C-alpha cells in the first residue's frame, strides 16, 4: 500500500513537473494574445501547438533562454541537427547508459545468480520481448532478429517517454523518424524472406501461387502489400504519438482561449492529467505494437512453405 502511494505521488509530481513548461509556454501565448485581438486567439493556439509538435532548430528552455542548433549541409543535403535529433541522441545516451550498466552486471554474473534492481527490471522487459514477441511470432531462428526487436522497442519507448518530460520533444511524433524505423523493419523483413525462400521462392511469393494469367493483377497487389506494412507501421506510431500531444495541448489551450480560471481548474487540468497518464500507457503500447508487428512481419516473411500455404487458404 505504501508503495502504491509512493508510486502515485511519484506520478503526481511528474504530472506537475510536466505542467510547468506548459504553463510557461502559455505565458508566452498570453503575451502574444494580449498584443493582438481576441479573435486571433485560436490561430495563435494552433501555432503554439504546432510549435510544440514540429521539429525545430531551436532548443527552447523557456525561462532560461534558448539556443539555435548548428546547420550542417553536406553535398547539397541539409543534415542539420534539429531538436528531434538532439532528443534522439539523449534517448540513445540514456539507453546506452542503462543497458551498458545492465549488460556489465550480466557479464560479471554467474548463471546461478539472480539479477537485482535495474538488471532485474530490464530483464523482465528483455524476457518479455524475447518470449512473447520474438519467439511466439518468428518461431525458429528468432535469435537472429532479437537484437533488432529489442533495440527498436527500447528506442521507441525511450523516445515516447522523452516526449512526456519537461523540455522534451517526441521524436516519434515526427513522421521522418517513424518512417526510418519502419524502413528498417521492411528491409529486415525482405532479407528474412529472401533468406528463407531464396530468390526464386521470393519471386514466386509475389505471384501468390495463382495462375500466370492473373499475374498482371496479383504482382502489383503483392508489391503494394509489401509496402503497406511499413507504411502502416510509420503512420500508426506517428499518428498515435502526435495525437496524444495535440490533445493535451488543446486541452490546456482551451482555458486560454476561453480566458477562464474555472475552465482551467475543472476541464483543462484534470483532463490533461488524464490524457497524460493515458500517454504514458500509449508510450509503452506503441513501442510494443511496433515491435510486435515487426516481429509478426518477419515471422510471416520467413515462415516455411507449409505455413504459407495454410495462411493463403
Amino acid at each position: 500500500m505504501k508503495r502504491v502511494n509512493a508510486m502515485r505521488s511519484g506520478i503526481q509530481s511528474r504530472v506537475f513537473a510536466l505542467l510547468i513548461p506548459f504553463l510557461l509556454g502559455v505565458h508566452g501565448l498570453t503575451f502574444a494574445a494580449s498584443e493582438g485581438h481576441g479573435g486571433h486567439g485560436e490561430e495563435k493556439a494552433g501555432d503554439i501547438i504546432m510549435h510544440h509538435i514540429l521539429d525545430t532548430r531551436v532548443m527552447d528552455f523557456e525561462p532560461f533562454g534558448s539556443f539555435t542548433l548548428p546547420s550542417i549541409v553536406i553535398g547539397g543535403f541539409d543534415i542539420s541537427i534539429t531538436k528531434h535529433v538532439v532528443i534522439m541522441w539523449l534517448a540513445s545516451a540514456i539507453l546506452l547508459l542503462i543497458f551498458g550498466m545492465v549488460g556489465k552486471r550480466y557479464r560479471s554474473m554467474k548463471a546461478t545468480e539472480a539479477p537485482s534492481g535495474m538488471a532485474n527490471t530490464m530483464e523482465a522487459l528483455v524476457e518479455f520481448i524475447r518470449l512473447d514477441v520474438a519467439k511466439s511470432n518468428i518461431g525458429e531462428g528468432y535469435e537472429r532478429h532479437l537484437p533488432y526487436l529489442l533495440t527498436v522497442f527500447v528506442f521507441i519507448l525511450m523516445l515516447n517517454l522523452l516526449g512526456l518530460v519537461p523540455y522534451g520533444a517526441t521524436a516519434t511524433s515526427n513522421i521522418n523518424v517513424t518512417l526510418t524505423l519502419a524502413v528498417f523493419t521492411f528491409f529486415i523483413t525482405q532479407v528474412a524472406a529472401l533468406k528463407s525462400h531464396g530468390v526464386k521462392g521470393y519471386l514466386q511469393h509475389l505471384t501468390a501461387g495463382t495462375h500466370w494469367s492473373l499475374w498482371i493483377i496479383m504482382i502489383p497487389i503483392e508489391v503494394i502489400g509489401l509496402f503497406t506494412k511499413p507504411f502502416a507501421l510509420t503512420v500508426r506510431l506517428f499518428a498515435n504519438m502526435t495525437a496524444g500531444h495535440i490533445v493535451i495541448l488543446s486541452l490546456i489551450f482551451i482555458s486560454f482561449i476561453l480566458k477562464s480560471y474555472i475552465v482551467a481548474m475543472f476541464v483543462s487540468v484534470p483532463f490533461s492529467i488524464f490524457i497524460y497518464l493515458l500517454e504514458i500507457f500509449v508510450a509503452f503500447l506503441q513501442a510494443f505494437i511496433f515491435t510486435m508487428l515487426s516481429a509478426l512481419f518477419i515471422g510471416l516473411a520467413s515462415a516455411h512453405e507449409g505455413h504459407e500455404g495454410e495462411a493463403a487458404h
Partner: protein
Amino acid sequence: MLTSGIIVLSGGLLDPNPGLIFWTAVTFVIVLLILRKFAWGPMVGALEEREKNIQSSIDRAETAREEAEAALRKNRELLAKADADADKLIREGKEYGEKLRTDIVDKAHAEATKMIASAKEEIEQEKRRALGELRNEVADLAVQGAEKILKANLDANRQKAIVNSMIQDLSKHRN
C-alpha cells in the same frame, strides 16, 4: 476540431526531412550495434543459460523423483516378500513343532503302553511263581502237619495241642 483542422492544413507534420531521416538511421544503427554487443548479447546469453539451467534442474529433479519412486517400489516389494517369507517360516515352524509334539507324545504313549504291558507280564510271572512256591509250601506244610498229627495222634491233648500249634504256626506263617 477547428484547431486540429488548422494544424493539418498548415502542413509541416508530413514534411519530409532528409537530414532527420539520415540522423535517425545513423543513431539507430549505432545504438543497435552498441547495445547488441554490450547489452543484448550478455543479457540474452544469461537468460538462455538460466533457462537451460532451470530445464536441466527440472530434468534432474524428475529423474531423481523417478529413481526414488523406483527405489520405494523395490523396497515395498522386498518388504512384502520378506513378510511373506517370515509368514511362511513361522507357519512351517509351527507345523514342524506340531508334528514333533504329536510324534513325541505318540512315542511316549507307545512306550508307556509297552512298559505297562511288560510290567503286567512281570507281575503275572511273579504271581505265578509265588503261587507255585506257595503251593509247594502248602504241600510241605500239609505234609508236615499230617506228620505232626500222626505223631500227636497218640493222645487227645497232644492232638489238640498239635492242632493248636499247627494253627498257630499256620497263622504265624501266614503272617
